[in-house]
């Protein structure tokens, strides 16, 4: 991958995937900033030799399990307390678009 792999269109695409509304000015600014950030990360990557495997977790542990035993959760009242709106003990969300 070349260092300028992120185009203005890529930024617009990422923004729409993340449901973030960006103005033209912001697209221009981020189009310049994001490649710089990637460039910086690349420096870190160069330090890691072939003997350092990529990691996704800071501590080298595996198999952290929980027994299959139910534990009390929230009451419906607690669960719905933070919801902007609710109805019939359910979370109310606005019309869902883009399906069917």
């Amino acid at each position, binding site marked *: 991958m070349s260092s300028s792999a992120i185009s203005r269109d890529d930024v617009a695409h990422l923004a729409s*995937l993340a*449901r973030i509304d960006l103005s033209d000015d912001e697209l221009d600014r981020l189009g310049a900033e994001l490649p710089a950030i990637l460039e910086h990360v690349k420096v870190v990557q160069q330090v890691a030799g072939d003997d350092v495997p990529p990691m996704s977790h800071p501590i080298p542990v*595996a*198999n952290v399990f929980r027994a299959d035993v139910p*534990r009390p*959760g929230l009451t419906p009242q607690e669960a719905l307390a933070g919801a902007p709106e609710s109805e019939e*003990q359910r*979370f109310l969300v606005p*019309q869902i678009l883009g399906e*069917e």
Partner: protein
Amino acid sequence: MSTTTTLVPFEDALTRYEPVMGLEVHVELNTATKMFCGCATTFGAEPNTQVCPVCLGLPGALPVVNEKAVESAIRIGLALNCEIADWCRFARKNYFYPDMPKNFQTSQYDEPIAYNGWTEVEVDGEVFRIEIERAHMEEDTGKSLHVGGSTGRIHGASHSLLDYNRAGIPLIEIVTKPIEVPGDKAPSVARAYVNHLRDLMLALGVSDARMDQGSLRADVNLSLRPVGTTTFGTRSETKNVNSFRSVERAVRYEVSRHAGILDAGGSVVQETRHFHESDGSTSAGREKSDAEDYRYFPEPDLAPVAPSREWVEELRATLPEPPAERRKRLQSEWGFSDLDMRDTVGAGALDLVAATIEAGTSPAAAKKWWLGELARRSNEQGVDIAELPITPQQVAQIQSLIDAGRINDKLARSVFDGVLAGEGSAEEVVAARGLEVVSDDGALSAAVDQAIADNPDVAEKIRGGKVQAAGALIGAVMKQMRGQADAARVRELILEKLS
């Protein structure tokens, strides 16, 4: 839907095209708690009563993997002859949709816990090998209720209501490699495969595997290619097909629809499609596009899963008898012919017949009721035989009433009616509907006297030695007693009285 497609009759389509299928089956595990939190998983609980900060995606909540779910995933993988990963991770599948409050689904991406397997299904006595690509762990989504539109559909709804009880319940997604079987067999192979997976899940005891309750769900991917070519065509993905019969119908419909598009020189659009139970058709859903860019990345909040080889071997030792071997064993135990066995498996009644026999019924009687009376009713109602509201134990009770001479086969049909209608146990239905056979001589004798009085000419013939004429009098008695007379005893009484 605005586009109309000419449907090519299935058999006609197969003269020019070969179908290639891929099946994705979601199995909801029957663990007591969710995949990443301790919330209960009881089906049908009041909305939002089985939720916590983890499955609601509240900030700061930390998930922890359910060990039992991993164990079930490994056992499913082993039962499907898969290799089990010695190290694998969960991944975030990012998308915005209200059924997932976290805005991502915790799934597995390029490191499934089980991969490269195979299994075998039998159709019309022929065995087909299905290659398994992978079986991975993930979590179910919440349930939406669409308000304000017609018939609860999302289209035209003003808003939606979310219940997150199901969000986070462990799911295993089982994905096949492309299935290339003779086109005429494709629909029944697809159905047999999903049916086979259900049998396997029940045998493993890892899931209720009920398609009607959504604990077993199938997506049917299908493409066509011209006969004699090898490159796959563009596929459609029919989602959430909710019965075995529908799996078969969805394959047939999509073959007809694709053939219509290709015949007209068009090209199939790669999209998800919705299946309609009412007429067996499918309609366009989402087109595959940017929205499918899920930006998977390894889940930082969960440690990798690294099942030790000792654990895997321990779990391998717990696997039930493989279905094909079990069928062979049962066939010889029951004394079924190849054809009997094929019919039983084909009707999806193997486990039902087995459980009925286990409950004390003879193999012949168990087969008779399930493949006759009950198969007929499931066909008439368009439901799978396992979904009929009657248990093998209830069938065994009805047969034991017959064996005890308390009802006959004809009355048994009314008992089936009653049990299926939810009127209670076989005994209760017999009592409530007054279905017991009358073999009490007092009542029978009076009815026989009446029949003789009503039919003097027939009686005269019998007195004259024409014993076969007794049939007409037996019929008259039966009619009088609404079929509830003990026919053998009636015959004896007639001959006694007229000899």
